[in-house]
Structures are given as C-alpha cells and as structure tokens.
C-alpha cells in the first residue's frame, strides 16, 4: 500500500518514534509573531538558552499593528510595547525580522509563502491556529501554543500525535463568482466545526488541480474551522510556478533537486485514507454565515434557520446564535443589512482576492451608511494592488485603503466593530466578539463582501454583476 502525502511528510520528520503514535518530530521552520512569542522568548532567556537554529525562524508583527499611520508605533501603549518586545527579541536572539515599514511586512500566513519561506516537504509551525494555510504547498504546517513555540526555538522539535487522514475530493468546476471561500464554508457547514478534528485533511480532485495557490491557501486556512490542525494540497506545477524565483526558494541546481523531491510527495494512487468526503462544486452557490460559528452558514439565497424546525441538539445553539446576531428566524439572508465591510485577513487578502473584489467595485459606489475597508495581507500585495490600479478602484468606490495587518479579523488594533454593528467579512471566524465586543460577523468571499458593500446588505454577487 502506498502512502498519503501526510504520512510521507510525517515519516520524513520523525526524530524519535514514540508510544501511541506520539512521535518526536523535527520542525524545519517557525513563523513568529508578537502575540504568541514574548512568553516563549522570556522562557528561553530565563533558562539561559538560545535558539538552536535562529536562521529557521522569521518574525513579523501583524496582529496588533495599526493599518493607518504606519510610520508611528501603535497608539495603544500596550500594543506598542508588545511590538517593541518582538523587535527586541528578534534582535537579541538573532531572528530575521520584517519591520512594520519594510517591504517584507505582512500577515505571517501571507508573507511566509510570498517570501518563499514556506516550501513543500517541510514542517512549519507558528503560534497561530491558521498555520494550516501553509499546507497548501504540501508542507506539514500546524498551529501550536506559546509554550510549544519556546520548545521549537530551543530544540527544533515537538512531540506530536499522528492524525488520521481525510481526503476531501472536490469534483466539478467552480462556477463564476464562486470561490475557494465558498467551498470552505459549504464544507464546514456540512461536516461541522469539529467535523475534521483528529484528521489531517488533504484536498484533491479536479477542482483543486484547477485552483490557484491563493484559493488553495484559503481552503487550507479554513481547515482549522472544521477542527483540523492540518490542511494539505499536494505540490504540483501550480505550486512550483508560484514559488520559483521567490527570495527564500532554492536556486539553480538546488531548485531542480528540490522539485524532483517535491514531486514525490503526492499521495500514492493506492494510498488509503481513514475517511473520504466528496463535494461536487459545479452547482455550488456563494455561501455566507448567519451564526457565531463558522459551521453556521448557508447558500446566500437561503433563510436564517428557524430553531423550531431544527433537531433537538441544534436548537439551543441556533437560538443563542440568533440572539447574539440579532436575527429573526426564517428571515431571508438577503434582507440582512450591514454596517461595515472588511476585506482582508490571512484567509482572503491576497492579490487574487483583491482583484476579484475590485472587479465588483469597479464603477460602483459603497452604499451610503456602510463603512468598508480593504486591508491587503502584505506590503508587497499592497504595492502590487496599487501598481495594478486596484487601490484607485477601491478608493473611487468609497472603500478605505489600508496598510497590511490582521486588522479587523481579530480587532486587536483600533479597527473594530462597535457593539451591535454588523459586518460582511472575508475573515475566518464569526465568533462572538471576534471583530470587536458585541460585533456581529457574516463570513463570505471577497466577491460577496464587495457586493454587500455596494448594496448595503447581504447579496448574491451574481445578481449584481448580471450573471447567474
């Protein structure tokens, strides 16, 4: 029997096999940000340890940083101290650091791939649950806690438990204006917020083969919202074309050797998975969430569920979610008016995302009373969007055009919803208070979020664009 991509990656990184599938794994690379690293650096300092291989780490401040007035420190003194601490730690421990004002700045999960720091075949960790994103390159990438960050810094290793394997087979062709984000929301609605817990999820099939890296990253990014720490796509020519020539990727003879190695990582044709889910994307509609968990979503033409009609186990959950979201059972999703729009986050802030949102925004204006903003995932993406004229389109339509960062995905800076405000958001989590205390989040794709900005309510982008 052949091996799966996941098992190949795992087996290639076992330093010492352990009991019950709990092996000591070698960690090739770590991304470091300001929220999950100060405690780890402090623990190192207190124990008098250094980093085993500082060159395998890359640090950037993304969560708490302002997306306006970038030249200054965060106005919040606590956030400013946090960013300063990361800067100092990077300097003292010899870790590469991308400054707020530099070209390499951005959200960890956007700059990792952009800089060629993320490579196929490696293990990559970060004190951040959306590290799943990097699995799109065929890397074994997973989120860890701050204590584990410190363990990796000191030892380049972690004890981990091998997961079961799940293959998600995406068949068919994605219709126009329907994207990887809609696939993710549909899949999570089907299997549940913990439906993939304990599994490493590999996405495969014709719709994956046809998908660009941005879409693959969106899918892998959202895998954690189904409870899985690992999303994967086997590296192929799309992957290699994306990576070739980026700052961190192998060059010359090394590149050829690496590509040969990477091509062998794909799951063998006779590999067995513990579970297989198949989703035909051909008839998929744009999806939006109505609740406070990413699995509480539906096709955009549907209604808010009526708890009275729901299964007993689901009823309380729906009642609670609707109460928080301020929605009536049975109302049409189209009837939900929004106050704010956020296009950004490590899920959907890449150039491809911005291009599609800009297509919707072209020649239109943001609905009066709606405040909309676009926050590119990195300084490089921002520069590219400006060069392509996308920034002008957004500004002309009335969107705010910001500097890179996590921004209103997590509301750690001053980009946040006021209590009761309702937001169409391209981020990944609609948890209570995620975008600001009392704020209400509807997750959707960049195209759908742009359509919501223009119409002022949840909308089917295909209707707005005169298609479908």
């Amino acid at each position, binding site marked *: 029997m052949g091996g799966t991509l996941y098992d190949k990656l795992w087996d290639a990184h076992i330093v010492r096999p352990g009991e*019950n599938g709990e092996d000591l794994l070698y960690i090739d690379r770590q991304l470091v940000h300001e929220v999950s690293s100060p405690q780890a650096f402090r623990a190192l300092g207190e124990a008098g340890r250094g980093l085993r291989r500082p060159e395998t780490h890359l640090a950037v401040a993304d969560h708490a940083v302002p997306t306006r007035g970038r030249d200054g420190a965060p106005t919040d003194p606590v956030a400013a101290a946090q960013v300063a601490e990361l800067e100092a730690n990077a300097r003292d421990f010899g870790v590469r650091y991308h400054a707020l004002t530099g070209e390499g700045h951005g959200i960890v999960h956007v700059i990792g791939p952009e800089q060629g720091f993320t490579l196929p075949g490696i293990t990559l960790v970060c004190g951040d649950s959306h590290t799943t994103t990097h699995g799109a390159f065929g890397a074994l990438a997973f989120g860890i806690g701050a204590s584990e960050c410190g363990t990796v810094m000191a030892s380049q290793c972690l004890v981990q438990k091998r997961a079961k394997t799940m293959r998600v087979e995406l068949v068919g062709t994605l219709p126009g204006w329907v994207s990887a984000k809609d696939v993710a929301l549909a899949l999570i609605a089907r299997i549940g917020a913990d439906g993939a817990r304990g599994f490493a999820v590999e996405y495969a099939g014709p719709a994956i083969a046809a998908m660009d890296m941005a879409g693959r990253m969106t899918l892998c990014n959202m895998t954690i919202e189904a409870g899985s720490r690992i999303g994967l796509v086997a590296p192929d020519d799309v992957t290699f074309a994306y990576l070739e020539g980026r700052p961190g990727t192998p060059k010359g003879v090394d590149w050829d050797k690496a590509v040969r190695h990477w091509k062998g990582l794909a799951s063998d044709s006779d590999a067995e998975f513990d579970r297989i889910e198949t989703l035909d994307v051909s008839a998929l509609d744009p999806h939006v969430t109505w609740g406070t968990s990413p699995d509480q979503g539906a096709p955009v033409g549907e209604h808010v569920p009526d708890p009275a009609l729901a299964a007993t186990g689901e009823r309380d959950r729906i009642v609670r979610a609707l109460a928080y979201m301020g929605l009536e059972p049975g109302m049409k999703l189209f009837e939900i008016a929004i106050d704010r729009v956020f296009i950004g986050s490590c899920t959907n802030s890449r150039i491809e995302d911005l291009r599609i949102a800009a297509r919707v925004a072209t020649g239109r204006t943001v609905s009066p009373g709606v405040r909309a903003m676009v926050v590119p995932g990195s300084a490089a993406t921002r520069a590219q969007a400006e060069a392509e004229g996308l920034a002008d389109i957004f500004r002309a339509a009335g969107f705010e055009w910001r500097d890179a960062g996590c921004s209103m995905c997590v509301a*750690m800076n001053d980009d946040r919803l006021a209590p009761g405000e309702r937001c169409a958001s391209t981020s990944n989590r609609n948890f209570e208070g995620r975008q600001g*205390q009392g704020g209400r989040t509807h997750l959707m794709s960049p195209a759908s979020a742009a359509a919501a900005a223009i119409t002022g309510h949840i909308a089917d982008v295909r209707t707005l664009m005169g298609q479908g």
Partner: protein
Amino acid sequence: MEPFTRVTGPAFSLDEDNIDTDVIYPARFLTITAREGLGAYAFADRKLDLGGAPVLVAGANFGCGSSREQAVWALLGAGVRCVIAPGFGEIFASNCLRNGVLPVVLDRETVEGLHRSAQAGNVFTVDLHGCTVQAGEAAPVGFAIPEPQRQALLNGWDETASILARDGEAIEAFEARQRQTQPWLWR
C-alpha cells in the same frame, strides 16, 4: 509547571458546545505579554464568574478556534486545574497539558450527568493517579489519558527540558541526514 495529582472542590458548569478561545479570552486583551494575572479576563465578555472552582465542566469542542495559550493561562489564573468535556479543540488541549491543566474527555452522556451534578453544587474530586472523576456521592467515573502525558502532568515535567536532556543525539543524527537529503534547507 505545577504537577497535577489530585484536585478537590466545586465544579463550574458551562453547558454549551463550541466555546471558542475568543470567548474564553477576548482578543483585545492579547496585547498583554504576561502569562500571570490573566484570571480576571477569563470569559470577560460573558461576565462569567467561575467562583474559584478548580473544575470546569464544558460542552463539546471546548477551546476551539485560536491557538492562544492565554485562554489556558486565564483559566489557570481563575483557579481552574481540570476541564471536563466531550471533546476539545486540539491546540487548546495541548496547551492545557503544558500548563498543568488536565483536560478530561468523557462521553456526552457522562458529561451531561456531571453538568447536573456541578449545577447541584456537588464537590468534585479529580484524581490523576487512579484516573477518576468523582462528583458528590456518585460512583467514580474513569477516564483515559495517554501515559506520557499523564506522567508529564503528575511530575510537572517541562517538555523543552525533557527533549534537550534526552534527545540531543537523535536530533543531531536527524539533522545530519537531512543535510544530505534536502541540502537546500541548509543553505
């Protein structure tokens, strides 16, 4: 970390599935870089007062979402040493183990019984030597936990120190091999 052997005291019941780490520890407090003194922020937006209960009985998929270890530090700061649920967010459970907090997984029906018992104000005893939970006068319920994790909790072992003490040679051997097989990772 502080060893976990046995705790006794009241249990707080939070009978709701999918409580995420944003609910346990709201993001706006994440700019604080300390790990101590976070107890006051636990469930801040739900305004839940755990009342110093060392045991938290929770719903399915507790601690899903963000990897923030602050969620565990906040619970610890509020006095929680053991969380019982039908299932946990994986990173949360792993963070618990590194902070002397015991995550106990039991089937849904058993956890339902423990919720009622906690709501009735019974005293809980969680014993990691015998791997049992006892609530009030009811018969103890057994739970399973992988042996290496149990040993680490009982002894308060620190993962970093264990790896460095035990696996130095294996790590070097691995690195030497990888230099050969994937030299591009070593330039």
